[in-house]
């Protein structure tokens, strides 16, 4: 009862704008965190993360459609999330096992091809199966109270996404700071040395790749449930560029950087869409209508930012540092570097 009393808040337009932003930030943060595991910590260059995202979204959608009315709502939701992660993990295994034995850029090409195959297959399957070009409608299974209002729905999803992001950020941190994580970092830094010191590089890479794919599947499931309709056109390479930007902007191997970058990117994107409007939600700077061209050129802008970052900061803005370390560095008492102390 406590939860529903809490959710009885009515959201105004400002609240709706912010909850929508939070949900989208959450989705891209999940995608960024999972891609960071593969591209950042693992130094494998995958360009097919949007394929695993799509796999997850469609697996969750199909599961929900087929079990609708038969399973209680929360159970259907949990089942669909499980199905999504499983589908994406299997996809990751299928593409990872043959490709990760090879060194070099084979993975980038293979994963990119895989994602295109996923998208085009969905597009060309009969419409009564996955919706084809028109898209798949995912019935709403999580209802706060009836009648269900848009405000309740938004708030519920903002909270769910916050929870999911916190959980996944914790999982990624745990992984990286465990024995398996150290092996992964070792393989990423010098695969030959790792192999000669008893670490199985292929196994380490495949496991990471599968885990990253499964987490992208989770993002897909949450996205599908929130949107209510998913269509193949939403899972294009442009989305991959956006995810890469989240990872690179935040720093390859930085969790907090990833979260910050996802927020920054989505905030700017959503603000630009409001350029020239009279009444604005709280926290949105008023932009003249002349700025709306930027909204239509937005995908060019972020692709360009990605190119510039790749040239000038290939390890990302933060590198592998975390935001708290950085802030401590800026505002805290300056300590002499540790290394200087040890040589004294």
């Amino acid at each position: 009862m406590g939860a529903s009393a809490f959710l009885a808040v009515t959201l105004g337009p400002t609240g709706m704008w912010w909850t929508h932003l939070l949900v989208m930030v959450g989705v891209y943060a999940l995608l960024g965190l999972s891609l960071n595991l593969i591209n950042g910590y693992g130094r494998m260059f995958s360009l097919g993360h949007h394929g695993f995202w799509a796999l997850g979204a469609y697996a969750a959608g199909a599961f929900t459609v087929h079990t609708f009315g038969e399973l209680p709502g929360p159970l259907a939701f949990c089942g669909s999330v499980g199905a999504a992660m499983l589908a994406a993990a299997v996809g990751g295994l299928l593409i990872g096992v043959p490709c990760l034995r090879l060194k070099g850029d084979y993975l980038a090409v293979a994963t990119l091809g895989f994602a295109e195959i996923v998208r085009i297959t969905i597009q060309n399957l009969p419409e009564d199966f996955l919706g084809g070009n028109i898209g798949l409608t995912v019935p709403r299974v999580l209802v706060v109270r009836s009648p269900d209002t848009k405000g309740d729905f938004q708030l519920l999803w903002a909270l769910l996404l916050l929870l999911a992001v916190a959980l996944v950020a914790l999982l990624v941190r745990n992984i990286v700071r465990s024995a398996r994580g150290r092996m992964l970092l070792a393989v990423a830094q010098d695969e030959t040395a790792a192999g000669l010191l008893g670490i199985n590089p292929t196994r380490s890479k495949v496991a990471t790749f599968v885990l990253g794919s499964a987490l992208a599947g989770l993002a897909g499931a949450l996205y599908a449930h929130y949107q209510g309709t998913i269509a193949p056109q939403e899972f294009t390479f442009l989305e991959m560029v956006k995810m890469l930007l989240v990872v690179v902007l935040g720093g390859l191997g930085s969790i907090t950087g990833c979260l910050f970058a996802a927020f920054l990117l989505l905030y700017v994107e959503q603000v630009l869409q409001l350029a020239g409007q009279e009444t604005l939600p709280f926290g949105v700077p008023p932009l003249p209508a002349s700025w709306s061209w930027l909204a239509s050129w937005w995908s060019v802008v972020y692709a360009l930012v990605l190119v510039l970052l790749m040239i000038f900061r290939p390890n990302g803005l933060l590198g592998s540092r975390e935001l708290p370390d950085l802030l401590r560095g800026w505002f805290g008492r300056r300590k002499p570097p540790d290394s200087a102390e040890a040589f004294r």
Partner: protein
Amino acid sequence: MSGALFEVDCVTKRYGGLTAVCDVSLELAEGDLVGLIGPNGAGKTTCFNLITGADPCSTGRILWEGRDVTALPDWKRARLGMARTFQNIRLWKDMTALDNVRTVCREADEAGWLDGLLRTPRHRRVEKAVTAKARALLARLDLERYADLRAGDLPYGPQRKLEIARALALEPRLLLLDEPAAGMNPSEKQDLMRTVERLRDELHLTILVIEHDMRFVMGICRRIYVLDHGERIAHGTPDEIRRNPDVIAAYLGSAS
């Protein structure tokens, strides 16, 4: 031959038209401390690569306790008990010295991905054991004070010693040292010689060492193999090698 821990049996390695190692045989018994020397480009490091599986042999066999391991991948051979260091230092530079050692401790295999993910008691127990072992190894090589520094930031000598500590984390029976004293000053070299001998005695290791520094090799090795142009040209005790005319010719050029 029986009793040998490790044998290289008539191994050849060709890269295209170039024969880097030609029909070389080596044999090490348990507890041996053997040197592998030769002029630059003689094929010493290639030999190490063939032994450890970094490169496949063109022909010939690698035997471990009489068992043919030629087809095993590098990481499986390492787990049998052969560990190596590298001529051009290959530490994981962005990790701390401690983590470099911890990563190689095979005790860590007991905890799977899920243990790390969920921080199970098993994860905690394994981390504790691995950390204790790694710290003990760092202490053994007198590297404790560098434990929490980034490996790439260490001075040159300690980096070389850290490579040895990392290799020892595998609990190897055969330790392959590729120019461990390169770039060290004379006192560091003296110190390293004593360390290598001490490690062999304390940990019951068998050691094969590539080294250019003759004082180092002659000082600690019981036997020495000499390679030149990929072929084994001599084998014997340090005294025999010092007097061997082929060896002198290989290093100084023949008089004729």
